[in-house]
């Protein structure tokens, strides 16, 4: 294995200079590969399908989830499609906690991560033609070193009147199954802000984890308080403004064999005075974002 550390400075420089060779040089050792994949094997006029940037990450290395982290930055997601195609917001997979010496906490993506992007095909797309989509991403991949990387990937799909699942469709099914949904009122899980703390109660859980989004009201001491084995999380808020909202992903692990994780999206005012009972986001739910781990 070449010494990735020695190469870093040069790689960085050549990337900045826009030399075409930069990507080729990034190959040995290949820490991250990014491939654009699609759920279906064809594009249907007027319909929305899911495409995604599939990141395969070398063991022990990680990319960064776009939330509150002490270091790093998340991969950029850029999708290029022909005129008339609408590219939606990326949907990120759930992160894992990555504590490191020096009281550092990052929320990271390991092994494999599919960032799903909805793509709406224009109604006037001509069947029988072929369309090429391109994805581009730049990332920082870290372990006991941090290295920059980037990649592009294209996929060409026919426009047709019917489509069937492609060879990678299973990855999209799995991504949807673990996608955080609203909290099911029947689950007994409750979230509230009390005395300046964001508190979650999840009776029967073995582990609770909260991953705040980048635009969430800042939370303190996440290293200590962002994970709990007591069925209850309590995290201090960092002087939230009147309009600040707590946003993020809640992971609830239950032990009942088999052990499994459920992921919920949290979105609520950081100031309890601003909370109206009617706007509680945990009241209507069918999709619990349930998945096995």
């Amino acid at each position, binding site marked *: 294995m070449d010494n990735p550390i020695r190469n870093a400075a040069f790689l960085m420089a050549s990337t900045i200079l826009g030399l075409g060779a930069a990507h080729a040089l990034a190959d040995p050792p290949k820490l991250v590969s990014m491939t654009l994949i699609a759920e279906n094997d064809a594009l249907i006029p007027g319909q929305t399908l899911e495409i995604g940037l599939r990141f395969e990450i070398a063991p022990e290395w990680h990319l960064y989830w776009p939330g509150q982290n002490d270091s790093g*930055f998340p991969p*950029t997601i850029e999708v290029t499609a022909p005129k008339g195609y609408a590219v939606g917001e990326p949907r*990120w997979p759930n992160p894992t906690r990555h504590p490191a010496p020096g*009281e550092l906490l990052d929320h990271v993506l390991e092994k494999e991560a599919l960032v799903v992007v909805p793509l709406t095909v224009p109604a006037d797309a001509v069947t029988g033609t072929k369309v090429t989509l391109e994805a581009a991403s730049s990332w920082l991949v870290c372990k006991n070193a941090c290295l920059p990387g980037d990649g592009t990937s294209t996929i060409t799909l026919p426009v047709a009147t019917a489509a069937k699942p492609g060879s990678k469709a299973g990855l999209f099914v799995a991504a949807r199954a673990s996608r955080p949904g609203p909290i099911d009122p029947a689950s007994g899980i409750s979230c509230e802000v009390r005395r300046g703390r964001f508190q979650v109660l999840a009776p029967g859980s073995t582990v609770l984890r909260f991953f705040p989004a980048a635009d969430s009201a800042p939370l303190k001491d996440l290293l200590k308080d962002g994970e*709990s084995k007591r069925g209850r999380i309590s995290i201090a808020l960092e002087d939230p403004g009147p309009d600040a909202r707590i946003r993020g992903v809640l992971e609830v692990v239950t032990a009942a064999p088999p052990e499994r994780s459920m992921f919920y999206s949290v979105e609520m005012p950081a100031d309890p005075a601003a909370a109206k009972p009617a706007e509680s986001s945990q009241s209507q739910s069918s999709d619990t974002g349930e998945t096995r781990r």
Partner: protein
Amino acid sequence: MTNILFRSLFAGVVSLSLCGGAYAQNTPTTPPPAKDDHKDHDHSDHDHKDHKHDKKDKKKAETAKIGESAPEFALKDTTGKTVSLADFKGKIVVLEWFNADCPFIVKHHKNATTFNDLHTKYNGKGVVFLAICSSAEGNQGSGVERNAKAKTDFKMEYPILMDADGKVGKTYGAKTTPHCFVIAADGKLVYNGAIDDDKSTDPAGKTNYVAKAIDELLAGKPVSTPTTKPYGCSVKY
């Protein structure tokens, strides 16, 4: 997730223009006391108030806090010479956490000359710059040899201090490279945070918080932005 560059237009070149937005949020990052065993941390929910009080009282003298005396240190530079914070009494001291191979350090020392420019600007005005490398042996950017070379390659006119056991880094609560601290002439810590407001690996941002703090100190004013959220690679403790 407002920082994600996301376009559906035709865009040819892959660039490293990453998170475009400025990190506006000022997060007072009170450095917690150093601990090594995070993985085995018991994340229990004891009474937080009491716990915090405990921490504050016991660790007060050992951690870096805004408005309090900056923790003393004595570390060897790449030539083997011992450099102490006490050597610079009466001067403004800028600490830069450093890892020569971290893309963010490369950004500020090679692609842009952020730190050298600051040094050139303030060197004659009673401001001292010290880079500190807390990379543990074998981790990225570690070792005297690598740092001696970096000092030459980056044309740095200030020393890189070796903190391989990470003690000084953990005392200051250094989280990233570059994580910057500014110590006023009276020895008090007045700034803890990012070098500037562009946390991507792209060339330097618009507001340089370290320059702003130094300018305010030199003008006899209080530092208006004492803390920001540092960005960069994690310090490789």
